[in-house]
């Protein structure tokens, strides 16, 4: 990854130097091994601080909405899921393709610091490096090697699009990920198998953890409304009380609003501070859409109609209970 990181810095430096872009969105390193965070760079010298490592999980595409309000051209580094997110934003008319230069980064999968912590490896950890399928934990005492899969984010384990689906320049060779779709719906199927009461109990327990912080929504590239209906007190759809029914309302509607638009980046689950597995709601809808209307991978091809913005005469009709007649 370090080789690619050099390329990231060089690409960004050149782009700023030759005026191709006015601003670069990339990642920088903070105080800790896992602390890779979004960087907004306008000066050539600033590009030296850019990095590309196994913690560049933050999706930079949604920042473009704000950034492009100024009359500038922006260069942005996008991973596979980020690129789908970009396409979704494009479809929603939230970004202007002409004002963006995309540097695609085939993604080897990101490492979940929580998993590292849970494995008891976080203590004294100085750096984490990844090469191929291995991850190396570096402490004062030395190095330890593990299989990278063990520490990858859950969402990366079922990722279908590690390579950017849209870019102007691809900074590395495409990666191959042998993620079978077999496990893609595993979580969903487990819940589907439960009885209605069990399912409800499961989700009530999950939703009741919700603190209404909106992190899931704000990180979501499909949630790009100028003003979310839940932020609009005039809409009269939800209050802010910590009440089960309102949490359920929020999460059900949130999932529905991204139906057919969710790019399956899994960020909602990742950022939830209380660990609600929100992506399981989105995956359920993806599963249903695939089953009923054919596979639709939002953000892969933005010229395709979103499933809820179109219909077919011969769509399945789960509702018709009696034959038409009786006139």
């Amino acid at each position: 990854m370090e080789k690619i990181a050099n390329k990231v810095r060089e690409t960004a430096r050149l782009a700023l130097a030759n005026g191709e872009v006015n601003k670069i969105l990339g990642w920088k390193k903070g105080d800790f091994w896992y602390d890779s965070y979004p960087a907004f760079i306008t000066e050539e010298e600033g590009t030296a601080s850019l990095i590309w490592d196994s913690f560049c999980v933050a999706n930079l595409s949604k920042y473009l909405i704000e950034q492009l309000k100024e009359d500038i051209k922006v260069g942005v580094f996008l991973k596979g899921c980020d690129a789908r997110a970009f396409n979704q934003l494009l479809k929603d008319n939230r970004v202007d393709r002409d004002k963006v230069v995309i540097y695609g980064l085939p993604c080897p999968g990101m490492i979940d610091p929580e998993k590292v912590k849970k494995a008891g490896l976080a203590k004294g950890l100085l750096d984490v490096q990844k090469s191929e399928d291995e991850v190396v934990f570096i402490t004062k005492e030395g190095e330890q090697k593990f299989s990278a899969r063990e520490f990858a984010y859950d969402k990366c384990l079922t990722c279908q699009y590690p390579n950017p689906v849209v870019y102007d320049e691809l900074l590395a060779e495409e990666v191959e990920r042998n993620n079978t779709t077999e496990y893609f719906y595993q979580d969903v199927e487990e819940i589907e198998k439960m009885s209605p009461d069990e399912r409800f109990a499961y989700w009530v327990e999950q939703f009741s953890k919700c603190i209404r912080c909106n992190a899931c929504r704000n990180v979501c590239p499909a949630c790009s409304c100028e003003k979310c209906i839940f932020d609009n007190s005039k809409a009269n759809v939800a209050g802010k009380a910590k009440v089960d029914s309102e949490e359920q309302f929020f999460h059900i509607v949130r999932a529905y609003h991204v139906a057919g638009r969710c790019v399956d980046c899994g960020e909602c689950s990742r950022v939830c501070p209380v660990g609600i597995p929100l992506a399981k709601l989105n995956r359920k809808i993806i599963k249903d859409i695939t089953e009923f209307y054919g596979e639709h991978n939002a953000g892969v091809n933005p010229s395709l109609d979103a499933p809820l913005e179109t219909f077919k005469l011969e769509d399945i009709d789960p509702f018709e209970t009696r034959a038409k007649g009786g006139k």
Partner: protein
Amino acid sequence: MSLENKQISSENTSNFKPLIVAFCCNWCSYAGADLAGTSRLNYPANVKIIKVPCSCRVNPNFVLRAFQRGADGVVIAGCHPGDCHYTSGNYYTRRRFTLMKNLLEYVGLEPERFKVDWISAGEGNKFAAVMNEALEQVHKLGPNRKLRDARWKR
């Protein structure tokens, strides 16, 4: 630490009077309901109708709101696919609520509590039959506590 009381006051199931909120499109199903009336077809009084211009006007928010407010069942009724007054509105309804219904079931709602059906202006019989059936099924299930706001008093 929620505001909610732990238990929603337990309703006496034997006196259970289910509430069904039915969203009916103006052109077909509302007229179908009227026809059920002119034909004096009986169905229980617990079905209460809200008129919308087209079934595609029904926002999933409305359905959830009804459950929040203590509805034991929700029905959306629109023109038969192909017969929409607005040519294609109910095709959207069909897609939207195919997904929404599945999602609601996924979070634990019993399938019988939420229905979509197509009832034409001429199908007064069907209107009564659909409502009777919905009520019967909901009655069997008992009062709905899922998705319900404990602060709301019916």
